[in-house]
């Protein structure tokens, strides 16, 4: 059972399109298309890219106590999670966070969308639908909830990049109405024709979809959820409409290098079976405004308090594009040559380069004269001590040693948070 490689409804399209395929999360997925991962990465920053993300799983949590169960199992405090003012979640909004076990370790990260106050969708990683469903059921106890694993029952594609809204405007029915009041981390519509919400977002051919202002590249764009039977048509419709805007299909290699440059973690690689703390993603924990105490109780909270001084995860960027192979594995050493940890992710963001201490992106408005961007290695390390941004460490695999700088952030001038209106 567990070893059968699954396919998304677009598998045949990928193979016919000459994609280099590889198994990820139990699914045979495209790594890159003939245009190559470098061009795909750059195109998401300059134009737009289309990703098949149907390998990701959805879990539905419904019933009068759905909210209460999520308050126990999900890291964010749903009563205080929207915007700087920390208002409660509302229907049409979504939130990033994680599910932890009692030890404070990550079961998976997720985006939770509130469809209505008794119905939530949780988008989790490939192959994690059953695990997360089991975890939620184990904690459902007296709660009046139903938990349904929708793995392989929803098709999903991501359109990412500054042209995404213009392309979506070509394929949506009433795009102005759809785009109105759609901030970052909000959504509209439904992929299920039975849902009244499915009236809110339709393609021109009347296909219903859930359109979400989210993504995993750090760039402006949308995630689209449809009935799996509608997926191939949606994919082809978008590519055709997007051709004039430079849209190209993109594989998982570009997705990986884009997300790393955007300082986003890959579940089970950058976050995983160790306590979820001292990392760049503690915004996913329910800290109070001073960042000291948790505003709610949740599974794993006590373990996180106890682990306050344990391993630290940091983002880094190199000084050229050379990376290390984390599979070797690769180790981190300090300036005295002492081993202090391991490398979690090491990829090349081909869209960035250094001039002095500053990193520029191909999207940066002002760049030094005669400056050529050739890419920088970047990713995440887990070490046994606190480091300060600007500090350098060495990463070593069995081929090479590279010097990298601890960074608060990696690729500058990202577009993810821009308003739709500014991108039309």
């Amino acid at each position: 059972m567990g070893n059968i490689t699954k396919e998304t409804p677009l598998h045949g399209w990928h193979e016919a399109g000459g994609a280099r395929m590889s198994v990820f999360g139990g699914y045979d997925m495209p790594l890159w298309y003939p245009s190559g991962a470098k061009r795909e990465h750059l195109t998401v920053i300059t134009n737009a890219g289309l990703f098949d993300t149907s390998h990701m799983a959805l879990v539905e949590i419904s019933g009068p106590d759905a909210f209460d169960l999520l308050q126990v199992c999900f890291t964010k405090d749903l009563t205080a999670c929207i915007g700087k003012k920390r208002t409660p979640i509302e229907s049409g909004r979504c939130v990033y966070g994680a599910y932890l076990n009692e030890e404070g370790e990550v079961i998976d990260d997720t985006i939770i969308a509130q469809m209505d106050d008794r119905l939530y969708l949780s988008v989790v990683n490939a192959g994690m639908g059953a695990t997360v469903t089991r975890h939620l059921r184990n904690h459902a106890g007296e709660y009046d909830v139903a938990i349904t694993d929708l793995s392989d029952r929803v098709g999903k594609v991501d359109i990412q990049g500054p042209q995404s809204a213009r392309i979506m405007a070509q394929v949506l029915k009433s795009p102005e109405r759809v785009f109105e009041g759609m901030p970052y981390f909000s959504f509209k519509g439904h992929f299920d024709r039975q849902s009244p919400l499915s009236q809110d977002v339709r393609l021109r051919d009347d296909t219903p979809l859930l359109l979400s202002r989210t993504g995993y590249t750090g760039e402006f764009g949308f995630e689209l959820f449809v009935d799996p039977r509608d997926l191939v048509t949606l994919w082809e419709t978008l590519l055709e409409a997007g051709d004039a805007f430079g849209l190209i299909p993109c594989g998982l290699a570009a997705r990986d290098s884009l997300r790393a440059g955007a300082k986003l973690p890959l579940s089970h690689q950058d976050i995983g079976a160790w306590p979820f703390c001292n990392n760049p993603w503690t915004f996913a924990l329910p800290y109070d405004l001073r960042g000291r105490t948790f505003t709610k109780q949740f599974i794993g909270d006590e373990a996180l308090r106890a682990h306050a001084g344990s391993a630290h995860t940091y983002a880094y960027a190199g000084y050229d594009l050379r990376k290390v192979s984390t599979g070797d594995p690769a180790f981190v050493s300090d300036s005295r040559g002492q081993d202090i940890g391991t490398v979690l992710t090491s990829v090349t963001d081909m869209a960035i380069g250094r001039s002095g201490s500053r990193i520029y992106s191909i999207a940066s408005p002002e760049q030094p004269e005669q400056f050529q961007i050739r890419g920088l290695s970047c990713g995440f390390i887990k070490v046994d001590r606190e480091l300060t941004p600007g500090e350098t460490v060495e990463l070593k695999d069995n081929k090479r040693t590279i010097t990298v700088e601890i960074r608060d952030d990696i690729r500058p001038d990202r577009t993810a948070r821009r308003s739709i209106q500014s991108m039309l």
Partner: protein
Amino acid sequence: MKEISELYLPDDVRYAETHEWIRIDDDRVRIGISDFAQDQLGDIVFVELPKVGDTFGSGEEFGTVESVKAVSELYIPVGGEVLSVNTELEDTPELVNQDPYNDGWLIEIQPDELAEMENCMTKDDYIELLEGEE
């Protein structure tokens, strides 16, 4: 990804099991990687080559090619001294993808024993190896 039938595998080179090629051009002996290797690696973004004058025994690692996804070692099919390296690859490593047997060559060597080339595969043997790897 290319099917074996879509690969460009010229007759005038010999192939190593590790997917390098070697060719005698007049009095030059050039080394590069095969169309199969560049296709498997994907976009090559950096090539690390030895210095002129370095010497390597047959099968020794002489450099690396770095693609978006991985860093791979390069092994010398025939031992010898490095006479020149393709400096064009510093600025345009993608030449290895675009033209692996000509503009994308890696190094030129003075072989210790040119006869060692006979240990490398002909095109037909190499195709057989690739079919076995599928």
